[in-house]
């Protein structure tokens, strides 16, 4: 038996990855941490502020209401997009020439840049020239998203559903086509009806895919910024001022670096916690 040869030169091979991670995650994150515990003055003067900004943000009425709006928005969007996407995936064809047509159509909304999505819906929903607004008003419903909070919410939710349901549908579709034919054949032989096939074959087999869809949609909707910023800019009033929009107002509008940094970190912790919660709940009954 020869002694184990120690050669630490291999560490140099991982150095590039360390550098990459450092510059793209650690350094910016630590800068934010740095700001969050200091008071900033002009001329690059910083003084220690401790947990003051965190206390301020956590007790601020403004933060609470933005957080509530954000939670409500994510909740509504998930409640619509997940069942709708699943439903669309179930009705998509599995074989034949229509498969590619459907896939292309479904991917279209996902290929459009986010600020373009915001602009499109902005133009669609403008009360004086927009097609959507004309139609709704033509039906006798008073609709003006620049003035009515409910109309603004309706428009934003509709835009998000239009933009992202495809993602859920495509994920579910991928999960559905990977179920072997034998399962459907066995179900036929066992006399299972459509509902039983969905409940005992399709839904269990889609569990992992659905978990991913919920996580992705939750994280994205919780961080939504671009489309809302273009469409309503957080208004009317503060009706659609979500956390991200509020954060940008504080950081770049008011240039309050300390509170903005503290808020960023709290925001980050909330997303991390809720994602962990979703994942744990959905994977609770996993044997393997």
């Amino acid at each position, binding site marked *: 038996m020869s002694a184990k040869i120690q050669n630490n030169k291999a560490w140099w091979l991982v150095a590039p990855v360390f550098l990459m991670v450092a510059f793209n995650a650690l350094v910016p994150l630590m800068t934010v941490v740095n700001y969050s515990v200091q008071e900033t003055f002009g001329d690059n003067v910083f003084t220690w502020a401790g947990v003051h900004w965190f206390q301020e943000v956590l007790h601020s009425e403004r933060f609470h209401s933005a957080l509530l709006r954000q939670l409500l928005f994510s909740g509504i969007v998930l409640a619509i997009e997940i069942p709708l996407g699943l439903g669309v995936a179930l009705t998509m064809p599995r074989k034949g020439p229509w498969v590619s047509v459907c896939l292309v159509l479904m991917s279209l909304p996902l290929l459009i840049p986010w600020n373009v999505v915001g602009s499109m819906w902005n133009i669609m929903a403008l009360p004086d020239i927009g097609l959507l607004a004309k139609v709704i008003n033509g039906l006798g419903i008073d609709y003006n998203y620049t003035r009515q909070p409910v109309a603004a919410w309706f428009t934003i939710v509709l835009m998000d559903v239009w933009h992202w349901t495809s993602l859920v549908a495509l994920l579910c579709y991928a999960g559905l086509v990977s179920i072997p034919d*034998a*399962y459907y*054949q*066995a179900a036929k*032989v*066992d006399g299972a009806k459509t509902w039983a096939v969905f409940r*005992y074959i399709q839904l269990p087999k889609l569990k992992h895919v659905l978990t991913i869809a919920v996580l992705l949609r939750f994280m994205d909707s919780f961080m939504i910024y671009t489309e809302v910023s273009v469409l309503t800019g957080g208004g009317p009033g503060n009706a659609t001022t979500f956390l991200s929009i509020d954060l940008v107002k504080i950081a770049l509008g008011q240039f309050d670096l300390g509170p903005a940094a503290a808020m960023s970190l709290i925001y980050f912790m909330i997303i991390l916690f809720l994602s962990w919660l979703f994942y744990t709940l959905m994977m609770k009954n996993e044997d393997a």
Partner: protein
Amino acid sequence: MAKISIENLRHSYLPFPNSERDEDYVLKKLSIDWADGGAYALLGPSGCGKTTLLNLISGLLVPTEGKILFDKHDVSHASPEQRNIAQVFQFPVIYDTMTVYDNLAFPLRNRGVSESVIDPRVKEIAGMLDLSATLHKRASGLTADGKQKISLGRGLVRSDVAAIMFDEPLTVIDPHLKWQLRSKLKELHQRTKRTMIYVTHDQTEALTFADQVVVMNNGEIVQIGTPIELFEKPKHTFVGHFIGSPGMNVLPCEVKNGQASFAGQAISTDNGSTYKGQNQKLEIGVRPEFVTLAKTGIAAEIVKVADAGRFRIVETRAAGSSIKLLLPEDQEIPTGKVNLAFDKAHTQIYADGWIVGEKP
């Protein structure tokens, strides 16, 4: 329970097959009767259409032409549920989220059977399949053979199924468990007396399981018979090749006035005297088991000897053809030139592949 008859069944996977072109069809005009309570095997190489035939009988596919009758009722277009068929697939299909008990009860619950009937039935079947101990465990935690037993159990749990189909059910089972499940199947067949149709490309599985083996090739039925018939009197050289290890020796020959000859040497055969045709490709078929070393006979040269346990497979060459024979392991094997003799009763003449004197 039912007698299953197939009449002139043809099947094509093409949307618009040309009925004049045989190549368009994976099954070419099959007719066959399956008696109630029989144990059948459908044996053939991959792609010969045996799974297609199985799915046509169970109702997962609708035939392009022809009829399927269950006790004289035409069920060609009926669903698997209407036909009351059970089927076990190549890969075990279980309902992951259910317990073993719920899996077994599933086909009955789907048919609205009351729980008071289901409970004793499920327990009885679980007992037969040695699943009682795991009855309340999640089915997804079982091993492959346990899962395959559940698939089988879902077929057995309905007391009125017309037949149980098996589509290569032992593919994913570990070798040492294969024989266990195979003998379990045999035992279940004897206990329940259900019609069982078993698709496989493995001759051992087919020959041990079935009373009647249906050998298929290229979308056609080549021979139906007991394992012994298939071994002793293959109707076609394909059956001779496909069944047996090693397969039958097939040698080119001539037949004149009922006398067969190979490489100029007369050979006495079982059916040579009945041959009346002409201009056909003629062959002698004799299994290695019925070839022996002799003092006189066909001159051959030993090329290779392979050990196969209690026997040795001796490969010889005679007049450009390979002839294999089986010798007991304690028999001394000469080297170089030998003479071979064929057992007359098991030496057959084949014309264009089909046995002479029996081809319809």
